[in-house]
């Protein structure tokens, strides 16, 4: 039988605020245990939650970015369960009336094997505001677990998709796109190591062609795209094998073990999943007016899709170039800064995605820590276009700048890379070359086009690579036709 995998994602994005969602405690990462756990985080008797304006602002921003309905009135609810890192005995979340309703994100699924690249729309079911729980630390004291409530109350936006994805590649393409988007609009720092962006992946399989969903298992807390691929592929295989062996899939929460590459059931959901949601009487409904939305809209950056279209139209870049350049805000900003500094767009795109990206990748560096600024790159490209240096020499200058050897012009001078553009000097070189290579000249005159290139090569060599190739071509042509 042929099987089809059905995947939906729930992503917890930590919102970029300085304080918690319901209290004025700091959310700074890496503090000493419980030094950022105030009376609200600890759920001491008599405390009340007060909603953080910036968290709401972030939620609206996300809603606008995915073209979703923003609820004019949304409600906070209590999700009840007992766990030591949740001292209230409930998590404040949203249930029936979330702040962000249905929206959509267009993803680009990369080519793989015979399958060429394609676009797909992933529908977003909802996104809701909620608080994070604390952290359990095991092994510090024999026979006990330690609880650190610094993270308790950290603002999260949980973003839920429809079960629209049909392969690990699609799920990862969606997760990457979402990861870029939340950073682009500045609502999440995207730091996966620190847990700022965590994905739960719901996986089920069904016979191909069936429109009924199979029983799903939820892979919890994936914090790398590589693990996501491995976990989905393993889980899919496991479910298909189980069904083909006549078994049944039990709804369950599973954990992925990166060491073994396997998933393993954590707890049976039937009992644990009865959260008995009800509206939190400590919080009034969240009302978002048209003016609130307009204020956030005014604060919105141009979105990647819009910027991509603009780059294609304004700078005649290919769809591929424009989409690569708008893969992150940082990259787009770098590109635009180089253009603003006078660089030519297509050439800039080639260098940014070629030499610069390759260098960054090979040294595992972020663009923000690039030794070469956008302005420096622009200066280098200007020296190519004005004929000062050749493309090859530019690569040497690039490497030297990367090593911190100075500015473009000083490196060109120090390394003697300036092209010979004085036509008198070039003519002299060519005259010598023509005299020394009479045979080649004869061949050319006899109709052998290749001989022309050989003569150009000789002239370049005679100039030690410094002659302006375009000028060499021109002058040589004139002389041969004379």
């Amino acid at each position, binding site marked *: 039988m042929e099987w089809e995998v059905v995947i939906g994602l729930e992503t917890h994005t930590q919102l970029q605020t300085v304080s918690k969602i319901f209290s004025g405690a700091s959310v700074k990462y890496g503090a000493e245990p*419980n030094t950022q756990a105030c009376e609200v985080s600890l759920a001491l008797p008599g405390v009340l939650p007060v909603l953080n304006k910036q968290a709401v602002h972030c939620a609206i921003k996300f809603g606008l970015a995915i073209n979703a309905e923003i609820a004019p009135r949304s409600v906070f609810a209590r999700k*009840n369960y007992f766990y030591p890192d949740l001292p209230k005995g409930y998590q404040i979340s949203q249930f029936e009336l979330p702040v962000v309703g249905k929206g959509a994100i267009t993803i680009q699924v990369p080519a793989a094997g015979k399958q060429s690249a394609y676009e797909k729309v992933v529908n977003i079911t909802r996104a809701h505001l909620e608080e994070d729980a604390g952290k359990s630390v095991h092994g510090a004291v024999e026979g006990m677990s330690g*609880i*650190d409530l610094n993270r308790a109350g950290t603002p999260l936006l949980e973003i839920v998709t429809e079960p629209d994805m049909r392969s690990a590649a699609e799920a990862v393409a969606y997760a990457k796109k979402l990861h870029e988007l939340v950073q682009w609009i500045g609502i999440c720092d995207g730091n996966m190591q620190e847990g700022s962006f965590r994905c739960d992946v719901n996986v089920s399989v069904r016979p191909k062609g069936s429109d009924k969903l199979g029983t799903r298992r939820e892979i919890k807390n994936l914090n790398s795209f590589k693990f996501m691929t491995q976990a989905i592929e393993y889980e899919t295989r496991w479910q298909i094998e189980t069904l083909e062996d006549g078994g049944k899939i039990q709804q369950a929460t599973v954990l992925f073990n990166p060491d073994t590459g396997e998933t393993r059931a954590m707890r049976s959901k039937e009992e644990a999943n009865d959260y008995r949601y009800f509206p939190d009487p400590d919080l009034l409904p969240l*009302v978002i007016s048209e003016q609130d939305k307009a204020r956030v809209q005014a604060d919105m950056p141009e979105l990647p899709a819009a910027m991509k279209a603009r780059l294609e139209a304004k700078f005649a870049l290919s769809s591929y170039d424009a989409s690569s350049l708008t893969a992150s805000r940082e990259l787009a900003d770098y590109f635009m800064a180089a253009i603003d500094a006078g660089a030519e767009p297509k050439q800039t795109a080639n260098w940014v995605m070629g030499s610069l990206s390759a260098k960054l990748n090979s040294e595992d560096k972020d663009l923000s820590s690039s030794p070469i600024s956008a302005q420096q790159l622009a200066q280098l490209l200007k020296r190519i276009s004005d004929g000062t240096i050749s493309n090859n020499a530019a690569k040497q200058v690039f490497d030297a700048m990367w090593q911190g050897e100075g500015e473009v012009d000083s490196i060109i001078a120090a390394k003697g890379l300036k092209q010979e553009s004085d036509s008198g000097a070039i003519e002299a070189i060519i005259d010598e070359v023509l005299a020394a290579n009479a045979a080649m000249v004869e061949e050319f005159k006899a109709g052998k086009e290749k001989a022309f290139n050989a003569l150009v090569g000789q002239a370049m060599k005679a100039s030690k690579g410094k002659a302006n190739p375009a000028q060499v071509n021109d002058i040589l042509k004139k002389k041969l036709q004379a």
Partner: protein
Amino acid sequence: MALSIEDIKKVAHLARIEINENDANATLNKLSGILALIEQMQAVDTSGIVPMSHAQDLSQRLRDDVVSKTNLRDEFQKNAPILGNGSQELAVAGGLYLVPKVIE
């Protein structure tokens, strides 16, 4: 909607309330009475009425995103429970609150 004694026990378990047979039966009667009342109320036509989510007809005030809380860990941890098992010490260590081991 008819409640069973199993429903009562399940809800009690979810809320981590210990309940004996007698109390469970008494609770069953009381809760069934409440549900019967709700059933009566459901005869009222409420179409077109926005469900109420709070007793007060107000909306949520928002707080500016500033850090206003200072570190009071040492004060708060004086309220930690006694470790027990013969120890009179507070159940804290290295800044952490200690709880019986949780394994998932």
